[in-house]
């Protein structure tokens, strides 16, 4: 075994001892039971990205783990009935609440909640004959309540996908058709509303396409966190407060960041249009203004249609 691995193992063993000491109820677990789980978490969240992680960071990582929740889950995995009883008693409300959020009605929520407990208990059997329990995936980094919510949400998505693959209703087909038509309409909307010449409308359409392509490329070139913020705000239509919550920043910070991103994107789009598409700066500026004006017109007409 490499010296580094021995060092990590030692750190993990010591960390497991500290974790057991700070747990309110260690459920008669020992260091040898806990250490493999902690090692897996360290590998997954630290060493995978940086094999030379400093020992202080590994120690801090282990000390920030949820001691009681991890002991509870491991005890449940080992078949401790008292631990199962505690798990169900403490988290029934959490699972039910999460199931209600992910479902359209009470019956579906109840079914989902029951499925969760079956998944957790390992009623499904793997190919090798061992029970497939989701409990093995809990690392102890986040809270058990949060993990359970995530499990419920994922199961809800899987269930919905399975159900939607089976049957595509007529309604869905109509929606798909409408979406395709809307895209085509967008492209021709300028010609339909303002009445330019055919040459002008064709030229404008190419300009729009170039602009959108340049914008798309600029978004892809953003830093990951900036790109995530753009996707959350513009693609997922979240409010700034919600987008900030995902990123772990305050709403005001998210707002300032978005303003900066908008300025950067505009600058980058202009550069792409000039360098790669052969536009002039004046053309790029004019194109921005024209396309934006047309988009505003589209939005206004959309709003008028919805109000009728």
């Amino acid at each position, binding site marked *: 075994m490499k010296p580094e691995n021995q060092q990590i193992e030692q750190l993990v063993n010591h960390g497991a001892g500290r974790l057991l000491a700070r747990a309110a109820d260690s459920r008669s677990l020992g260091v040898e039971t806990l250490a493999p789980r902690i090692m897996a978490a360290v590998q997954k969240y630290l060493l995978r990205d940086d094999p030379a992680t400093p020992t202080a960071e590994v120690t801090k990582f282990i000390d920030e783990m949820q001691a009681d929740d991890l002991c509870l889950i491991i005890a449940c995995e080992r078949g401790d009935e008292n631990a199962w009883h505690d798990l169900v008693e403490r988290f029934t409300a959490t699972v039910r609440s999460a199931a209600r959020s992910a479902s359209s009605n009470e019956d579906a929520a109840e079914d989902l909640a029951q499925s969760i407990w079956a998944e957790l208990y390992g009623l499904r059997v793997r190919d090798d004959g061992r029970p497939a329990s989701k409990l093995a995936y809990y690392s102890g980094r986040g809270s058990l309540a949060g993990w359970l*919510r995530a499990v419920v949400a994922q199961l809800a998505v899987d269930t919905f996908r399975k159900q939607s693959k089976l049957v595509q209703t007529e309604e869905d087909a109509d929606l798909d058709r409408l979406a395709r038509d809307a895209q085509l309409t967008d492209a021709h909307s300028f010609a339909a509303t303002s009445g330019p010449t055919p040459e002008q409308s064709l030229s404008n359409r190419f300009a729009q396409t170039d602009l959108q392509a340049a914008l798309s490329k600029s978004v892809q070139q953003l830093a990951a966190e900036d790109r995530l913020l753009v996707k959350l705000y513009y693609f997922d239509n979240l409010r700034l407060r919600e987008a900030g*919550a995902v990123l772990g920043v305050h709403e005001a910070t998210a707002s300032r960041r978005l303003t900066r991103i908008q300025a950067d994107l505009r600058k980058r789009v202009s550069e792409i249009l000039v360098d790669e598409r052969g536009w002039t700066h004046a053309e790029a500026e004019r194109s921005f203004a024209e396309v934006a004006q047309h988009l505003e017109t589209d939005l206004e007409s959309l709003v008028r249609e919805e109000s009728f």
Partner: protein
Amino acid sequence: MRNFTFFHWQRSFEMKRETNNNEIDLLLRRLGRREDAGAPEASIDGEHLDADELSSYALNALPAASRARYTAHLAECSVCRKLVTELSISLGAATVAEQAKTAPVPGGLRKFLASLFSPMGLRYVAPVLGAVLVMVVGFVVLRQQRRAEKSSLVAQLPEHRVNESETARDSGAKADAPNAAANHDETYHNTPGKPTEPKPSGTPGAEATRTGAGAAPPPAAKEPATDTPVVAQRQVQELPVLQPSTTAKPTGGGDAQKKADETAAKKQPETVTVEARNSEVKDQAREPVKTAGRTEKFENADRITIAGAADRKNEPANKNKPTAAAPAAGVASVVSRGDLARRRAEKEREADRDKRAANEEESEETKRLAKDEKVETETRTVAGRRFHKQRGVWVDTAYDSAKDATTVHRNSEQFRGLVADEPAIRTIAEQLDGEILVVWKGRTYRIR
């Protein structure tokens, strides 16, 4: 002109920037609508994030390097992004990263000052501090005025009054010093519980009203004359004690007041002269004062008040005595009568001032007590947390205004999720009405 040009340029630059941002905003919204319509599900290595990764991300519980990796995945995968969004909103993840990055934890004094100048602190602390400042300034000014008046009064004192006062003082001063000290200590340890009632005006011995005197009891029966020196000395000590101070604070004033006693006693020997001759003073001093919440302080005040009244009553006798004692003092008696009248007027003025100051102190103390009582009744303990009601908001004693609070509305999905995870918060929300600021497991929640 140059400034106007610069301002105009700056304004037009800001408007252009705003226009540019509006344009790119519209373009991004259009891009979002198109991508949403036809974007394929992306994933890293063909897999989505598992529940542990999703929940750890939503809870900000990941190291920076792994978080960056998952951020890159979420930027491409709408499915995982949606799940993380739902988890973040339902878990109400606090902006731990933001706070840890921006400000270091301040030390004791800085934290205290920060809490004072926080919005919540300013709302409550600033007016109180302002009122305290006004009171302190008023007290200092009043005290200086009294000192100035006292010194002018002493300067006008004739010599024969000084001689008589020394004679009266020697008879009982030393023997009664402990009693006097005990009396004025008791004075400052009394706790008045009733609002001020108006005292009769023009009473020269009304310095004690500053300590919160209330109703003046009626005069009592006379007592034997043997106690006169003792009583006189007690009153001598009391008058100077009460005069310099305009507050009724019980602590820390004992020694300082004793020194003030001695100083004032030396400066006003004419007071000793007047009081020493009143055998009726001790009679009224022995009368029990039956007012609720009042003790020795008000007895003393009343004693002195009555002494002052007796003083006026006995004035002619006092006036006559020096005249009788000095057979050849026809001219001297005329002079002393004029002095007496002047002194009486001055004493009346001083008594008025003292009475006003005592009334102010009483009202301040009453307000403070009322506030304390109000604070004491607006405290509750629920689920092991202690809450004070402040301006209609139940505030956890562990609340730190420097930290952000997550707002949760009752009957919202976020609230339901929160109380599902933390049933104790449901108990708190049910037992306390209105807005609640509760600190739970290191996070602050504002429940509305």
